[in-house]
Each structure stands twice: as C-alpha cells, then as structure tokens.
C-alpha cells in the first residue's frame, strides 16, 4: 500500500503450481476478491490480510518501507501484478 492508500498485489505467476491442488480454486477466488476490494475498501482489506493466521493464505511477515511501493518488485523480481 502506498502513501496515497493505493493497494497493489504482486504474485508469483506460477502460484497455481505451488499451492496444493485442492486449494487452487479457493485461492484464485480470494485473489480475485483482493483485487476487487483493493479498489473499493483498501484500508480494511490491508488490515485484514496483515493478520491471516491459518488456512489458504497465511501472513508470514508484515514490513513497512517508505518510498516507492514498487520496491516489492525488486525483492521478488519474477512476481507479476495481480
């Protein structure tokens, strides 16, 4: 999330081959939800995904970096925008 409240997602383009096969559909639907809610309810969505403890998606680490939000692409250069 940038300083203007714009929320962006970057994912591994091969995520479907990484997650358990039985979870692909639900995770795909969750990612669709994220993209939709990022436009309409970014603050609440960001707060929620910072505290995912178990299930299809889990929050491993929350880190704040000032400056260019696209710095995440540098950390994970093969990720693509959702």
């Amino acid at each position, binding site marked *: 999330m940038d300083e203007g409240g714009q929320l962006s997602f970057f994912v591994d383009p091969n995520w479907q081959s990484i997650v358990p096969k039985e979870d692909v559909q*639900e995770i795909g639907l*969750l990612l*669709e*939800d994220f993209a939709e809610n990022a436009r309409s309810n970014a603050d609440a969505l960001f707060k929620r*995904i910072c505290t995912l403890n*178990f*299930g299809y998606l889990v929050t491993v680490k*929350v*880190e704040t970096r000032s400056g260019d939000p696209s710095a995440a692409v540098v950390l994970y250069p093969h990720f693509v925008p959702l």
Partner: protein
Amino acid sequence: MGTELYRACGLPVPPWRTLYISRDFIDQSPDCWMTGMDQQAGLIRPSVGLCFASRFLNGRDARLVDIVPGVAYSRVRKSQNFWTAWLIDACSLHSDARQMIFHKRVDGRYDATFIDHGNMFGGPDGRDTVPVAKSWRRPRNRL
C-alpha cells in the same frame, strides 16, 4: 461478555473459561506474548491476573481457515447466523470487523464459528462508534 451474548443467541462460539495467568508463567512462556498491529513495536507482554481463555479450535476432522472467498459464503451452513451476528454487532456497537473461523468439511461446505468479541460495546475503551455495517459488507452482499 460478547462471547456469552453470542452463545445466548444460539450462535457457535468456542467454549471459554477465566484463567489466572501468573507472572512466572508469562516470563517462562514467550509464545503467549502477542504481536500488535504495529509489528515494529515488538511483542506485547500479557498482564498478570485473570484472563479470558478460549478453547483452541483444532482441525482433527475438518480444515480450519480464517478467510474464504466471497462466493464461498453461499457454501456456509446455517448462513442465517450471519444476520443474527450482524444484529448483535449493530446493537452492541461492535467497532471491529466481525471475525470467524471456518471449518471446511469434506463436502466442501463450511461451518462458521464466531470469535474475537473484544471490540464490542464501543471497543476496548467504550468510545468507538464505527458503523458496524461497514465491517459486514462482503457477507451481506453474498447472502
């Protein structure tokens, strides 16, 4: 209090008890120290004394998830419980997003258990007045 209110209204909540937490236990159990919303601020040391102890919901016969896609709400059993919960939250000035744990059954359907009532009655200090309906946008649209 929130948990008991939910239970009295017939909604599924984890069993709970009051539990005395001693200073020695806290010192010797770093796993019970919590991370707040500001993760940079470090771990929060629990207070000594009586606390709310909620039973851990294990997943022996069902998988547990804490977020499901919006379209999956149509696969939640007893989905009318959401309306009851919404009414309770509205009347009790619940100032946080309603949290649930979903048990995924082998048939692909979900059972929802309601958790985390710490922001009911105007939040921790009783002064929050955030409209609860904002927190319920997704479930309401899908039911």
